[in-house]
């Protein structure tokens, strides 16, 4: 279970003061597929990044399982991060490494007891024939599949996705959503998806937080749809879209 309690986060420069997160309370169940939506700058990424300690809160607590993430020592933090994977909007693949090497990367950083094999995970995302390719030889959708394969190989208990489809077109978005959906079904990890694309949440998530200006203004139960439908508007339409079948 994930619990975020009374979390505040500000970014300070010399004269600017951005309240990225204000008084956040949130509980996410183990194995849940949870969405976070909101307009640009609402604080979605910051919220997500609390969970793997890429950001630290100014105040409050971030609890994941029995770890208090914001108070772990460096060593304990690494041990915690070992089982948390992230999928990025810009894929963040190493361009000088092959697909195979990219996917295997997490296994070279930590000792895992029961990781998946490169072949199994490439097969899972449908890229077995691209094993020896370099990222520059792949399309955007294929790159993101590599990103997902890299995230899955360690069998994470928590999968964080920050705008996983926002660099992709409609068709490719659908492919990626299906891969993530399948991953959730097969591996059963907790999965949190941050996006401004409502259709992605609708296809993937059980519940979704709606963020505005650093606050969670609502948490809605999603009526899942089998297909992606293209909706482009934000918060006001979110509830309408998400709560109707």
């Amino acid at each position: 279970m994930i619990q975020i309690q009374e979390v505040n986060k500000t970014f300070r420069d010399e004269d600017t003061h951005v309240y990225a997160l204000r008084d956040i309370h949130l509980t996410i169940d183990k194995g849940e597929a949870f969405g976070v939506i909101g307009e640009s700058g609402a604080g979605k990424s910051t919220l997500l990044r609390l969970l793997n300690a890429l950001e630290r809160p100014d105040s409050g607590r971030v609890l994941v399982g029995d770890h208090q993430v914001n108070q772990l020592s460096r060593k304990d933090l690494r041990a915690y991060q070992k089982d948390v994977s992230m999928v990025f909007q810009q894929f963040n693949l190493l361009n000088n490494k092959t697909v195979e090497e990219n996917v295997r990367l997490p296994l070279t950083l930590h000792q895992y007891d029961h990781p998946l094999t490169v072949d199994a995970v490439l097969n899972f995302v449908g890229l077995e024939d691209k094993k020896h390719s370099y990222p520059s030889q792949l399309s955007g959708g294929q790159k993101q599949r590599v990103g997902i394969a890299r995230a899955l190989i360690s069998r994470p208990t928590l999968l964080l996705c920050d705008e996983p489809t926002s660099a992709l077109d409609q068709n490719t978005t659908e492919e990626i959503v299906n891969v993530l959906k399948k991953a959730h079904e097969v591996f059963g990890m907790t999965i949190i998806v941050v996006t401004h694309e409502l259709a992605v949440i609708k296809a993937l998530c059980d519940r979704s937080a709606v963020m505005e200006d650093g606050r969670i203004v609502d948490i809605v139960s999603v009526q899942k749809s089998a297909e992606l439908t293209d909706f482009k508007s934000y918060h006001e339409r979110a509830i309408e879209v998400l709560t109707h079948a």
Partner: protein
Amino acid sequence: MPETLSIYIERVIDFAPRMVDSLWETSIMLFFAMLAAILVGLPVGTLLFLSADGRPNENRLINRSLNAVVNIIRSFPFLLLVVAMQPLIREVYGRATGDPIAASFPMIVIAIALYARFVEQSLMDVPNGIIETAQSMGATTWQMVWKFLYVEARSSLVIGFTTAVISFISYSTIMGVVGGGGIGDFAIRYGYQRYETDIMYTAIIVIIILVEVFQWFGLRLAKSIDKR
């Protein structure tokens, strides 16, 4: 015309042994400079990068002091650096003049400072997302450097090294001042002091060829390891 040519060739053959000696001296100086650039310049540049403000290993004291040292060395006119280092070289090596190893000391110092800056620059060009990815995976700093930063920066590190080595060649030509020898010193001695102009130009052409070879080889290597 064929006669002048044959005279020239004879003279070159005459001077060849001395030219080879001087090339050997240049090689010694370049060897130590290159070694220092890799063994010390690379880690110093990496440390400069890692310790900068806003980076995961931010450390003002280390960053500011390394920065100051590198800037001081690089802003020193090289000839003055050579002269200023004389007492130190004598202390460490026994003598400060008259051989290419003594002359390598200032070369080592400038090589470290110069390449450290190039390394820092190369690492700055690695997208921030790569560092973030390493962090999100719980990589140690060591792992982040070797498995992420150097992998993505490798061709630019090679190009920087090539550029640095070409500067080392240029710096090495000054070392005749302290009896370090080298091909640059050879050109100055025969061309400037003895008016053997043809021999001087020959030496300069040799230097140019040397630079071209390094440049060609460096670019080729950089290209072959760049999969971006």
